[in-house]
């Protein structure tokens, strides 16, 4: 069983909203100083899903991250969780790609690696959150795609995936190889043990350029972008919270109830 997991490095999404700043002119987010970037939340759960499959069926996990050289950090994190190999895809031509460009580059690297049974992505990246790369990747590779997975089982080269719906679940069966996108309901990611962390730190993480994966640069030409961001903004919200007075919890509760009686 060989699983390839696509993982993205993102600014820490769990900073308090008050610390979240943008540069509307550059249409970029200003990362808060001193807060290191992290592996995108759903991608970490995709690594967890891959590790569970490896626990059960043995085999191998390869992770891929398209980003800056610093993305080696998230690759190492995945390795400390249980991945075997990892690559960073970094090239000037890979900057500012849309979902199609990203899926194209990831697809090229995946074709180079080859010999996989399952490709996992997060349901959506925690930064720009386009929610498309997994599906476009599947289309590029001509593979079945199962989105929003919250449990993945494999038997006799057949996948049985539980996927999350608004008011329940469904079970989908598909042949391998296939692509699946993972949702948070799959459960919390494992915490790497100390030894694994140390070994991951020593691991060689090759950096692949466009030419290493045979990427056709004309595919990444800016004139071919499918979507462009023309503006970003933070909605202004007036704080209008009325603090409920009271010296004791009982007083506070009485005051709140009297405010709410009209409403319910």
């Amino acid at each position: 069983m060989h699983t390839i997991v696509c993982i993205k490095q993102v600014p820490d999404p769990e900073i308090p909203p008050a610390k979240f700043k943008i540069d509307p002119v550059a249409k970029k987010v200003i990362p808060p100083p001193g807060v290191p970037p992290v592996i995108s939340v759903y991608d970490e759960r995709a690594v967890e899903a891959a590790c569970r499959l490896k626990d059960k069926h043995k085999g191998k996990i390869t992770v891929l991250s398209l980003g800056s050289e610093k993305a080696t950090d998230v690759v190492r994190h995945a390795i400390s969780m249980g991945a075997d190999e990892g690559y960073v895809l970094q090239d000037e031509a890979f900057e500012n790609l849309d979902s199609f460009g990203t899926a194209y580059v990831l697809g090229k690297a995946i074709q180079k690696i080859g010999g996989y049974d399952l490709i996992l992505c997060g349901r959506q990246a925690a930064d720009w959150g386009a929610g498309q790369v997994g599906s476009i990747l599947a289309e590029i590779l001509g593979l079945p795609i199962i989105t929003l997975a919250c449990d993945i089982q494999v038997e006799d080269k057949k996948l049985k995936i539980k996927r999350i719906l608004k008011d329940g679940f469904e079970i989908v069966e598909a042949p391998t190889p296939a692509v699946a996108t993972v949702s948070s309901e799959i459960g919390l990611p494992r915490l790497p043990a100390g030894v694994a962390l140390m070994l991951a730190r020593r691991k060689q993480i090759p950096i692949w350029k466009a030419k290493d994966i045979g990427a056709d640069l004309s595919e990444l030409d800016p004139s071919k972008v499918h979507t462009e961001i023309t503006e970003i903004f933070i909605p202004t919200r007036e704080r209008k919270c009325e603090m409920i007075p009271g010296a004791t919890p009982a007083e506070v509760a009485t005051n709140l109830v009297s405010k709410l009686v009209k409403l319910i």
Partner: protein
Amino acid sequence: MSEYKGVMVLGEITEGKLAPITIELLGIGRRLANDLGEELSLLLMGGKAGVLAREAIAYGANKVYVAEDSLFDEYNSDTYTQWISNFCQKTMPSILLIGHTDIGCDLAPRLNGRLRGGLAMDAVNLSIDPSTKLLVSTRPIFGGNAYAKVVSRFARPQMATVRTKIFPPAERDDSRQGEIVSVAEKVDPSIIKAKVIDRIKEEFEGVKLEDAEVIVSGGHGIGSAKNFELLWELARLLGGTVGATRRACDEGWVPVTRQIGQSGKVVSPKLYIAVALSGAMSHIVGCLGSKCIVAINKDPEANIFNVAHFGIVADYKEVLPVLIEKFKEQRSP
């Protein structure tokens, strides 16, 4: 690019009726089509789709395409992608609107990959740029901390999945005229690779989250599944139900189907009581439509106080039991 014309809505049918999102999409779709001076069309798929076509015209569609094939009664990613992409290549809509629903979330990005269009997911606003005539979709980024406007200059169709309950439903006018086109193309079931073999509906205790008038929502600060009982007690008393943040669901204290937020459910009750949750934007976007938000949190700096109407800075364990008592007193004079 000028061969691509008109606004098309991908209809959904639930329990034999036009889904609420479809009527919402016909409303906003009509506005966009008017701004462009082009047609609004609707695609309806399913064994009994034909009977709904007239009604769709009353809701503003100029043209309704009906694909009456019972194979479409259940959504399948493989058949829908294949059939709709073929259909779009023939009809060439300039704009394609899809609901941000179970079906839309799965279908839209894959359809986009097949058609090589330009897609914005989870759009909360749509407009036509007056000078370029391009569709401008506004969508949340960074977990709802900010929003981006997205356009597609070169790719067609311009697609968006649209969040439910953002746009008002279209107004019905039975005197409207339109054309009904039946589409004969069948889908080849042998292309199905991924098959749905089972569907499990979660049985909800009490009212559904989306229908509830009162929701008591708990966060990681609640501390355990057992402590959530207190929230249940308050919710039952007020005829409502319980929701939760992702962190509370992650801990297994609450079923995952009760998660509220960007990647959970979007709710708009009359009263939303947010207990021991910090108010991350990705949670807040799921409950901003509530009439009244009450926040109980021991941290006065918590972001939830920036969106709440009423706030209590306290340990919830001290406040909730007395609050329950006071509501009981008030209800039985």
